[in-house]
């Protein structure tokens, strides 16, 4: 799967959790999920679980803790599919 497609799918997964949906329109790989998109930290688990379901992968706690930006998320997924 192309990185661009993964990126788009990640944005779709993030959509219900971001404070301002508009922020996703300007999101790049460097966008920080917690600080830039103002995602509630307690919802990160939901995001990781949604990613596991969408891409049929398993993400360990340590790997999940490393995720900060959208780019990190895309790299994590790319490395597992």
């Amino acid at each position, binding site marked *: 799967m192309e990185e661009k497609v993964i990126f788009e799918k990640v944005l779709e997964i993030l959509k219900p959790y971001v404070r301002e949906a508009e922020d996703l329109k300007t999101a790049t790989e460097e966008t920080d999920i917690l600080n830039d998109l103002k995602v*509630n*930290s*307690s919802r990160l*688990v*939901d995001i*990781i*679980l949604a990613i596991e379901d969408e891409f049929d992968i398993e993400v360990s*706690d340590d790997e999940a*803790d490393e995720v900060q930006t959208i780019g990190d998320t895309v790299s994590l997924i790319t490395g597992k599919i």
Partner: protein
Amino acid sequence: MKQKNLLNISIPFGIRCRCTIQKWVDWIFFPLLAPVIIFILKYVQKNRIKDLKKIRMLFKRIAGESKIPTLICANHLTKVDSIYIHHAFASLPFYWRHFRLFSWNIPAKENFWTKPLDRLVTYLGKCIPIVRTGTPEHHKEVLDTLRYLLARGELCTVFPEGGRSPDGRVNVQNVRYGVGTILNGLPDYRVLCVYMRAENQKEMSDLPPKGDTLYFDFKVITPQSIQTGRRAERDISRTIIEKIKEMEDLYFEKYKS
């Protein structure tokens, strides 16, 4: 060095010692500090608990019947909710004799750790402060400590929403899964879901309105999940918050309709 207890919960030796010492120190100072706090609550704040005797009788029956790990999960409206829970559940002499039933709490360090007096009272009140914005390692350490304490028959109180409800109502969507992390993997446990509210409490505040009577309701549940790992933690946490929400709906149906 890590020590494993019977339930295979590993916890650093230093933290085990810290908890034991804190419990003993708290027990020694309990007769000095607790009456002052209850005096303030009753005669300065002038708050009362509705059906106090009935609540205490039920709590004694539930908490005293066995040492099954019991986690108290409550809605959160004021900064002093845990004090009111303690007061509602038992008298000071009862806690003095059964100090394990005086539950541990995990207040946010940023709220209660700034002034020396607050730090002292927090320490003497069986509290383990947590830094909400802390590292995953710090959160894991606090949650492991609570699991360890629960496994030893100590009671612990947590607020599944993680903070006070800004609009004064339980927000099911805002649940934090730490509560599920604490319970998931324990071979046996139960949750004492608590719903409490002062009669004129509209939204979150530091203290309940002065002179108000507080309503209390509690239910014992054993939330389970057929899933594992994070999914189980999510299921358990959601079951708990949904039960508390159900209790809130019942409150509004009974008293505010």
